[in-house]
């Protein structure tokens, strides 16, 4: 319990420093601060998707309803973070390169991820029987997950990047990340991850409770 207050402190400190220390990337200027938030969001989005695929596989093997619940919840959170990542990315793109969207390979990937999440929930919404819903959406989650390596690793190599965009900047941030920037960035990454699991756990407990109530073990 106490650790939650620590997280509160940590995140507050991170937010404070993210805006008061010099901008991480001098060439881009103040807008580069968004990286402290944008990259962790994107990372969590992919992690959530992986968890969803994991729980989907678990469900197909053991057919425990709670696994499907976890897969769906991981996807819900993933969708939220995906949306946030797309938003912060587009804002950054507008400020830096003048356009909200340019089909840069990473933008394309996050867009496809958004579509996958959307499709997953469209599928769930279209099936009434809960067991069938769980089974079919699990299959889809796994199938969609299989395409992710293509998106993350192969696409950026294939599609010409119109801008001196993400890869250059990422490299810059990594190599020229001063100790201060590095601290803030990795702290942000850690805190975001902890936040994800905290919320995920809340959702999981809610599901367990709901199933208990439904099963009548009141």
């Amino acid at each position: 319990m106490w650790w939650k207050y620590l997280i509160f402190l940590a995140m507050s400190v991170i937010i404070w420093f993210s805006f008061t220390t010099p901008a991480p990337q001098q060439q881009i200027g103040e807008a580069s601060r968004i990286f402290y938030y944008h990259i962790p969001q994107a990372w969590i989005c992919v992690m959530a998707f992986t968890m969803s695929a994991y729980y989907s596989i678990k469900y197909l093997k053991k057919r425990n309803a709670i696994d499907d619940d976890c897969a769906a919840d991981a996807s819900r959170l993933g969708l939220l973070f995906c949306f946030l990542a797309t938003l912060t990315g587009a804002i950054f793109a507008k400020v830096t390169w003048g356009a909200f969207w340019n089909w840069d390979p990473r933008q394309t990937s996050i867009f496809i991820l958004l579509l996958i999440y959307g499709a997953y929930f469209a599928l769930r919404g279209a099936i009434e029987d809960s067991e069938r819903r769980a089974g079919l959406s699990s299959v889809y989650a796994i199938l969609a997950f299989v395409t992710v390596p293509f998106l993350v690793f192969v696409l950026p190599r294939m599609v010409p990047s119109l801008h001196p965009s993400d890869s250059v900047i990422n490299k810059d941030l990594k190599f020229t990340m001063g100790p201060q920037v590095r601290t803030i960035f990795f702290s942000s990454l850690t805190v975001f991850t902890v936040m994800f699991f905290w919320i995920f756990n809340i959702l999981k407990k809610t599901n367990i409770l709901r199933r208990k109530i439904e099963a009548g073990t009141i």
Partner: protein
Amino acid sequence: MNGNYVALVTTLAIWVGLFIFLMRLDKRIKELEKKFK
């Protein structure tokens, strides 16, 4: 510095709000778990 200040305050406000919301959820869940166990 001004734009940063606005962003800083907004982000902090969102964070505080989110944190309080989550803590309340946590409390509710704890109560429910006690009730049903």
